[in-house]
């Protein structure tokens, strides 16, 4: 177990180095010049050459790529992501302003949908091919089909037209005013969570279905155990592995969901921040965000792999 853990943690290093390099290259390849954008023009002709060179020097973009790359990696080692090219503020600070909102959205959406999805998936599996199953399947396939940004648009439309409600511009943290926070977050959470719940429900249904066909389940029936005991105590625990894996891989989609949802609801979170940063060619911000998100993905998936042993004691790590 210890050796396995050490191996997995060691593997994070090349992966993250790869991510750091890839995002660096991608940002340099994207056409468009930050300095031009900051000086407020797309046509190079309108801008003073000297001013442009000065801006490049000020932003540190006059240095060769290799030097910039070195600075980026050296900064990473010291958890220093540099300053935003636009605001001049440290990226970490900009990130900390927006992180609570996105984290709350992500955790609530995941938590709420898992709590709804697992019982629903179980129910559908236990009642396969009945109307219960059909309803659950249609609703969950719907969650995969309906674009979350459209759900957001519809929610806003309904709220605006029928309740005269406009989305608040300032984020209120839950520790300041829980009620205001709830009002602000409930719709985005539903928008992000529907898809998450749909995916998890489907996965739970199909794995529980598979497990219910196993011999030991037949034995449990023969012993005369109640259906509830069989499904919850015997089947569910064994069916959880793929579901948990899925929660990890869905993390990537969650980020996409955040980007879109925060754009629809004009929430000042990490997702919208990253889209704006790409559009502004704010290299340090995009690099830092991609790095942090990828690190989150890697860590979440490592933790998930480690929980396997808890769910299935037969699994031993080598």
């Amino acid at each position, binding site marked *: 177990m210890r050796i396995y853990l050490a191996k997995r943690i060691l593997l994070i290093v090349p992966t993250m180095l790869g991510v750091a390099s890839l995002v660096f290259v991608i940002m340099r390849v994207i056409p468009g010049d930050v300095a031009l954008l900051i000086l407020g023009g797309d046509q190079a002709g309108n801008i003073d050459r000297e001013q442009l060179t000065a801006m490049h020097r000020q932003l540190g973009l006059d240095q060769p790529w290799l030097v910039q790359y070195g600075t980026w990696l050296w900064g990473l080692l010291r958890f220093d992501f540099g300053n935003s090219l636009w605001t001049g503020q440290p990226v970490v600070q900009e990130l900390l302003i927006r992180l609570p909102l996105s984290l709350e959205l992500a955790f609530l959406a995941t938590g709420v949908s898992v709590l709804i999805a697992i019982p629903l998936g179980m129910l559908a599996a236990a009642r396969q091919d009945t109307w219960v199953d059909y309803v659950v399947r249609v609703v969950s396939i719907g969650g995969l089909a*309906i674009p979350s940004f459209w759900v957001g*648009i*519809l929610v806003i439309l309904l709220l605006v037209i029928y309740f005269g409600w406009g989305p608040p511009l300032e984020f209120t943290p839950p520790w300041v005013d829980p009620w205001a926070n709830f009002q602000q977050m409930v719709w985005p959470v539903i928008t992000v969570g529907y898809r998450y719940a749909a995916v998890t429900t489907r996965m739970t249904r199909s794995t529980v*279905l598979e497990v219910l066909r196993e011999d030991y389940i037949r034995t449990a029936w023969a012993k005369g155990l109640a259906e509830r005991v069989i499904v919850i105590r015997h089947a569910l625990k064994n069916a959880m592995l793929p579901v948990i894996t899925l929660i990890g891989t869905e993390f990537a989609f969650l980020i996409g969901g955040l980007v879109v949802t925060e754009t629809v609801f004009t929430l000042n979170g990490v997702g919208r921040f*990253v889209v704006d940063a790409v559009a502004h060619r704010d290299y340090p911000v995009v690099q830092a965000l991609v790095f942090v998100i990828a690190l989150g993905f890697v860590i979440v998936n490592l933790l998930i792999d480690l929980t396997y042993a808890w769910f299935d004691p037969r699994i031993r790590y080598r």
Partner: protein
Amino acid sequence: MSVQYPLVHVTASESLAPRLTFGEQVVKFIRTKPLGAAGALVVLGMLFVAVFAAALTRYDPYQGDYSLQFARPSAEHWLGTDEFGRDLLTRIMYGARIALFVGFTASFSGCTLGALLGVLSAYWGGKVDLLLERLMDILLAFPQLILALAIASILGPAVQNVVVAIAIPVIPRVARVVRATALSVKEHQYVEAVQALGASRRRVVLRHIIPNIMAPYLIMLTAQLGAAILAEAALSYLGLGTAEPTPSWGLMLSGSASSYAEKAPWIALFPGIAISLGVFGFNLFGDSLRDALDPKLRRG
């Protein structure tokens, strides 16, 4: 002299009794898999609309009529018109072309490349596997939407670039699954036996590994179809996919649509229904396909 036997064929096939005619097969499919049949119907309908869009409508998807801005749904314009006075139904019908094109090409190229890399990784093993696996790790960890966003910004907004942007993030996901399947196939005794009999590497891959990964490949392909259509919509919505005046469903919902939504809610309503219905159809169809291909899920 000219003797005709018009019934020979019919009697011949009748003697091979239990074989169902195509019509009977369709009826059986609808009976046993009503949801899958509904999905197939939606997919066929979408194909039909995409192919015959020009014949089905008399309006132009690009040319607006400013005197008809924000016209309500009426007998003339069934779904109303948008801010340029363009017929919404027409644009949605032409939009099916974009959705299907991006859906098919992106999922096909992404899944096929991923499957090839997965087989390569599993079969060659060693350093190739190690290298490819790390590369896939990096691509997996890289936030999908940001990757697509970056690719779209590098290549510029055009339909074929959206395909690339959507296909690349698919590759590592498919490669993972195919690699795992191929690895388990490789361990089967019959593959060992074939190798012992002197089969070449190429033969083992082509005749034994590839046929065995076809089921997961097809399942992922159909699953990705819907996902690709959604991804195109999301990218276009964010203003990074297709550009005006392309009649893309996602684009129709972006920027202007939500700001005019209060005045003309149909603009925000119908393209979303089109996306949902299309993806819904593909997913239902793909689900039934998976049930049919995966013997573990077959009821019995």
